[in-house]
């Protein structure tokens, strides 16, 4: 269809990777070419923000390790990964939506609903498999509804997902009015287990990164990046906007549903209010990871670092015997600071490019 430029992973960010001209019939050749050139120009420079996020993660890790010897052993890292999984999964989906310059507040509702269903319906291997499929399907359906309203009707992402967040929170309260329920011990223990000497949680985290690196090269991902960089140019280049947005929100719903499974494994129970406190961290993980709120730039490799950083922050706060209430305050501060740092870096890069 159209020439495909470099498809480097966003963390390397060395080559231009914005490419949107897939699917549909391209408009007139001239306009299409111009639009493509415009799209490419958005990601032409190296983005150091994900690398900065990983540096931050390492700083936190070593701070924690100094205070708490034994942190850098396999089992401790496994626990860290297990604690990070829920947030990482949420951030994976949230990141895809933010790449389209949108936001998904409904991940809180989907997560809450998922945990309540799991905690009330998981009894044995068969029901676990069956209801996991149901939970994931609910997540996808929720995302498709969001995507339909945002993509087809052109409604504001925040208002649509605020409304569906409320709706799914309400349904979760119906399924399980107060925190509780239970899941089979063997199922919950998986997250603390290990395979081939490596903790399962680390395998899961690695699997998410691998899936992301594969996804990053698919046409769907390229359309998502294109729509987020410049919706108008993407449209001219032949990207169908509405289906692209729907796929992004569907991915987010799926990931939030998956995150609810991790949450249930970690806590061995469900909670209809579990999602409300995770919306801010999910956005913060993405933004700390270097994904631009304006869309089109960033990816999950940075988000993992963001999620690890936020998890380590809790650990560090604990290690220094500070009240755990610092966590939510620090989450909020980090979110705003990361946005400011991100836009500051962007301005700096723009100035250097001009010079």
């Amino acid at each position: 269809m159209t020439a495909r430029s470099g498809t480097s992973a966003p963390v390397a960010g060395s080559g231009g990777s914005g490419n949107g001209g897939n699917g549909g019939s391209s408009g007139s050749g001239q306009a299409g070419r111009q639009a493509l050139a415009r799209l490419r120009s958005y990601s032409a420079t190296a983005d150091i923000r994900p690398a900065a996020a990983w540096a931050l993660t390492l700083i936190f890790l070593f701070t924690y390790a100094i205070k708490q010897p034994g942190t850098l052993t396999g089992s401790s890292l496994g626990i860290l990964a297990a604690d990070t999984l829920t947030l990482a999964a949420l951030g994976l989906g949230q990141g895809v939506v933010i790449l389209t310059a949108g936001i998904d507040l409904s991940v809180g509702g989907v997560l809450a609903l998922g945990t309540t269903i799991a905690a009330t319906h998981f009894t044995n291997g068969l029901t676990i498999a069956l209801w996991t499929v149901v939970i994931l399907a609910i997540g996808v359906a929720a995302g498709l509804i969001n995507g339909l309203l945002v993509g087809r009707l052109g409604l504001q992402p925040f208002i649509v997902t605020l409304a569906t967040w409320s709706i799914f929170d309400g349904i979760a309260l119906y399924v399980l009015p107060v925190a509780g329920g239970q899941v089979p011990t063997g199922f919950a223990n998986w997250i603390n287990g290990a395979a081939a000497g490596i903790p399962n949680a680390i395998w899961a985290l690695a699997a998410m990164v691998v899936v992301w690196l594969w996804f990053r090269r698919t046409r769907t991902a390229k359309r998502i990046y294109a729509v987020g960089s410049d919706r108008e140019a993407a449209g001219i280049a032949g990207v169908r906007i509405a289906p692209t947005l729907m796929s992004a929100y569907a991915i987010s719903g799926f990931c939030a549903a998956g995150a609810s499974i991790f949450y249930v494994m970690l806590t061995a129970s469900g909670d209809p209010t579990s999602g409300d406190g995770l919306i801010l961290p999910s956005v913060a993980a993405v933004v700390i990871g270097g994904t631009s709120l304006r869309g089109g730039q960033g990816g999950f490799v940075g988000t993992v670092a963001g999620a690890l950083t936020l998890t380590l922050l809790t650990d560090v706060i604990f290690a220094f015997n500070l009240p755990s209430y610092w966590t939510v305050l620090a989450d909020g501060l980090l979110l705003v600071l990361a946005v400011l740092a991100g836009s500051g870096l962007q301005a700096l890069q723009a100035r250097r490019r001009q010079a």
Partner: protein
Amino acid sequence: MTTSPPARPALPAPAPTGAARRTLARNRSVLFGYLLVLVLAVAGEVVSRGFLGINHIDELVISGGFIALVGLGQTFVILTGGVDLSIPWVLNAAAIYLTLWANGDSAKMAWIVPVLLAGAALVGAVNGIGIAFLRVPPIIMTLGMSGVVEGALLLSTNGGSGQNAPNAAVYLATHRWGPVPVLAVLWLAVLMIATVVLGATPFGRRLYATGLNQRVATFAGVNVRFVTVAVYMISGVAAALAGIALAGYVGQSYLGMGDPYLFASVAAVAIGGTSILGGSGNFVGTTAGALALAVLAGLLPILGLQPAALEIVYGCVILGAVMLSSVRSGRDRSAG
């Protein structure tokens, strides 16, 4: 905006001008809001006798007033094209600090209330400065500040929930002048002030201009940054006022008492016909939305629905109202 309107059947003879049509549309949504209140209230009376009894109407007006008060701040913010997600924790913090600091001593309210309102204004100012000067998107800035306020509240109170409200707050929030509750008078005053500020002051005009198009407003000499900081400060103060009044009305404060008010404030604004994109709408509409939500909340238990249904209803109401206004504005545009 549109290039060429689709071919329409012959226009009705004296077509109203675009402006007149827009005014009509705006009043239509406000009228629609009050009609909704009426229909829901009558439905309540049909399902359960006494729903429209004078005592219950009091209760509906007061609980609607709380939604309207937080909706006031949300209306101002949304009119400029923003949104304030920090309302629930500002409200909650005001309620908890009031009860903790007063510790039963009503006289202390003389300094506590001004301090709380000033603190809320400060939170709003930080929101506004982040949004107007540092260009942080409103949703991110207020989400972040919501976390900061929540964290600061939990830290300073060591995660403790609140306690009983001082007697003066309870007295003011539940007292009546003759048959009229004091709170109802407060709501009426708020409604009138907000309507005058929006409709008949230079600040109101600048606020609408900011919401319609920031760049054009700037060219027209509007200090967009000042307006933006001001609306978030108003939103913070309104939320704190609601928290203080709520603590008095309920008689105590507790963690989580602000939670329902995020969805409720946005839903009230949306029902009231204020455009989520900013620039059009008013507080009279939001009041209708708040009353409709209060009546709805009173109706649900009568229909045998759990409180959980309320959250679902809030969500559906927001979606419905936003879809309706999007369809309506699309039609207006293709007609104008």
